């Protein structure tokens, strides 16, 4: 590179776009749709009518249930829609077997084996924790068990644990995208930041967010420096000391990847300690866990991440009818709004359906796993949140990253992403490309470190 680009130039090169959305809420054009479901063609050959068993493992108990429950509901909604049309290829009804991820990593690997060997599941889906996918991935490969992980999005899974996946896929965005998205949104919105503080839960997700926020910020805000770090335990409830410490460091910005009940407790305590008035706040997952768990007392204008995946208000209105119908159906059934896990599991179920139909057209009859896998590899699929692309080399799902700012509107009793300030980033511009050598701590980290310029302020 001959000369360093300015920040503004490089943000443009990355395609970081702050877009104004359409009005929130329902538009007049009502699309009567069956979710993602396409017109059903008659399948080729004879199809057995035995149920198609999906083992769905996620958190049903413990603090993780805040993410696990919506995941299961997304899977359930899609399965019921598909079953209402007769099932997969019109014949095989989907049957979901639940398993609790809270049992612990060891027990989870045993349960995966049991589901495959005793219950004879046809497919495995779910998983919330980044601690579990690297343990379950190799077991799924060994069992030759078709698997779509919904989350557990650590880069480590396809960087190291299963570097050449055959049976294992994952649908939600890779974890490194989260820290990078947050950092780019900060650089685009608050370039004047000179000092920042961190509060992250002390486990792989928090560490990953810290790493990627730091490397991107090093490139985009070269004069800014970190002045405080806090690493509360995951599922902690008292953040008072971390807030005190952050306030004492007087940073311009706080970056946090707290989520779920942790974030709820954090923002309530931070409000009473006056934190939001003293610094900008950027989060990776604040509105991502459960949209309705954040109250209207939450300040507006906070960079409220949605795991760089999905918020049910975007794309808004009727611009992306898949989203509108999905949200309506989900709300009608469960009386709550879907989060990124619900969208991920719902889309994953339809990815499966589509792959089976395509494979059936090619080979006739019920396709074997190899045929289904061949169809998922390289598939670009429209889900409620947008297109998701399954890269053939690492089986990771990629969709454009999204984040935004908290805003209270009359339509919802909780804050949503400000429809006039949505930030989207093409995913290929913030993730390591195919063929990039595996790196430490992640391939994306070394890719950013080695290929991004340090911008001029």
């Amino acid at each position, binding site marked *: 590179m001959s000369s360093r680009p300015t920040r503004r130039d490089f943000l443009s090169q990355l395609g970081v776009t702050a877009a104004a959305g359409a009005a929130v809420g329902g538009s007049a054009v009502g699309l009567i749709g069956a979710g993602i479901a396409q017109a059903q063609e008659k399948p080729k050959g004879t199809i057995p009518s035995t149920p198609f068993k999906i083992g769905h493992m996620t958190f049903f108990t413990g603090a993780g249930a805040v993410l696990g429950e919506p995941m299961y509901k997304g899977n359930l909604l899609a399965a019921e829609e598909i079953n209402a049309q007769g099932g997969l290829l019109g014949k095989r009804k989907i049957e979901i077997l639940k398993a609790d991820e809270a049992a612990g990593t060891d027990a989870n690997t045993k349960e995966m084996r049991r589901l495959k060997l005793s219950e004879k599941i046809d497919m495995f889906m779910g998983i919330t924790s980044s601690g579990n996918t690297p343990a379950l991935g190799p077991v799924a490969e060994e069992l030759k068990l078709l698997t779509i992980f919904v989350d557990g999005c650590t880069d480590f899974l396809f960087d190291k644990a299963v570097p050449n996946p055959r049976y294992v896929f994952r649908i939600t965005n890779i974890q490194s995208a989260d820290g990078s998205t947050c950092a780019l949104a900060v650089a685009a919105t608050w370039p004047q930041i000179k000092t920042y503080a961190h509060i992250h839960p002390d486990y792989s997700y928090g560490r990953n967010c810290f790493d990627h926020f730091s490397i991107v910020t090093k490139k985009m805000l070269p004069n800014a420096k970190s002045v405080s770090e806090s690493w509360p335990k995951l599922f902690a*409830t*008292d953040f008072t000391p971390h807030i005190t410490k952050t306030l004492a460091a007087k940073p311009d910005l706080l970056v946090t990847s707290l989520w779920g009940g942790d974030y709820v*407790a954090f923002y309530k305590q931070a409000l009473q300690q006056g934190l939001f008035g003293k610094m900008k706040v950027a989060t990776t997952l604040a509105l991502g866990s459960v949209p309705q768990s954040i109250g209207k007392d939450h300040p507006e204008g906070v960079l409220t991440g949605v795991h760089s995946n999905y918020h049910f208000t975007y794309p808004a209105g009727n611009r992306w009818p898949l989203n509108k119908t999905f949200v309506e159906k989900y709300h009608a059934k469960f009386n709550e709004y879907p989060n990124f896990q619900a969208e991920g599991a719902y889309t994953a179920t339809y990815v499966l359906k589509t792959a089976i139909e395509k494979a059936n057209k090619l080979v006739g009859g019920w396709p074997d796993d190899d045929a289904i896998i061949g169809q998922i590899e390289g598939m670009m699929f429209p889900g409620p949140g947008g297109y998701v692309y399954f890269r053939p080399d690492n089986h990771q799902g990629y969709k454009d990253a999204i984040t935004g700012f908290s805003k209270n509107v009359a339509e919802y009793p909780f804050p949503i992403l400000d429809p006039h300030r949505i930030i989207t980033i093409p995913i290929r511009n913030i993730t390591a490309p195919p063929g990039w050598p595996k790196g430490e701590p992640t391939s994306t980290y070394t890719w950013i470190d080695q290929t991004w310029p340090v911008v001029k302020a």
Partner: protein
Amino acid sequence: MDILVVHLFNALLYASVLFLIAGGLSLIYGVMRIVNLAHGNLFAFGAFLTASAVGQWFAGSNSALLYLLLPIGAFGAAAIGAVLEPTLLRPFYRRPEEYQLLVTFGLMMILEDLIRFIWGPYPISATVLFSKMGSAKIGDFVYPRYNLLVIAVGGLAALFLWAFIYRTKFGVVLRATSQDMRRAAALGVNVNLVYVQAFTIGCFMAGLAGAIIVPSQSAVLGMGVDALVLSFIVVVTGGLGSLEGALVGALIVGTVREIGISMFPEIELAVLYLIAAIVLIFRPAGLFGKTA
């Protein structure tokens, strides 16, 4: 200077809640020699009950009523305790300890699922009590007044328990039963009654801890197990079965955590266990524990 005051309040805040939980655990062990593994989930039950009463059932009522509702979680947990001791625990006093551990462990799982069954998987808040009280100015900092209330409740609970155990007739009976159950029974003490009362008080304290932290923290699944682990650190440090130990242990843990977070953020998780380990090396029965 002002920041030191804030750090001190933070440490006391944490210690107050820990004392309530660990004090109850220790009281029950001291009197009945039962390590109640379900104790943490009685704390969680108290939190969920208060959260739903304040944040859901009576949401929007006038705030005086809501503050009166705050201790409902404590009474709920106490009621569970009053039922559990005679029905589930009493048959196991004569059995080896592992039976009691199994029973209370099973109870812990049942309570966890019961909470999920009643209140669902999402966090429940009762923030109105927390935000209504506003914040006090301490130099450059603002500090939630509600936290000061929690500290006061923790302190009062310690004082009240001390007076109860060392200055009342019931306290004498309680201590006598704890020292020698058979001899106390021979002297005409209704041991069964003492046991159910002690167990109920212990559960009340756990429930009170849950009720009082819920406005500032919200009720989440899994909070019980966390609380149990922390209160074990406290009682291991202070000495199992000793109320003074629970108090000193809670103060040590609160202070060490506060220092750890501000000075050694990378090992926040390890710091508490390190303290417990160091105490155990030099005083295996804890600071106030009696070696058997």
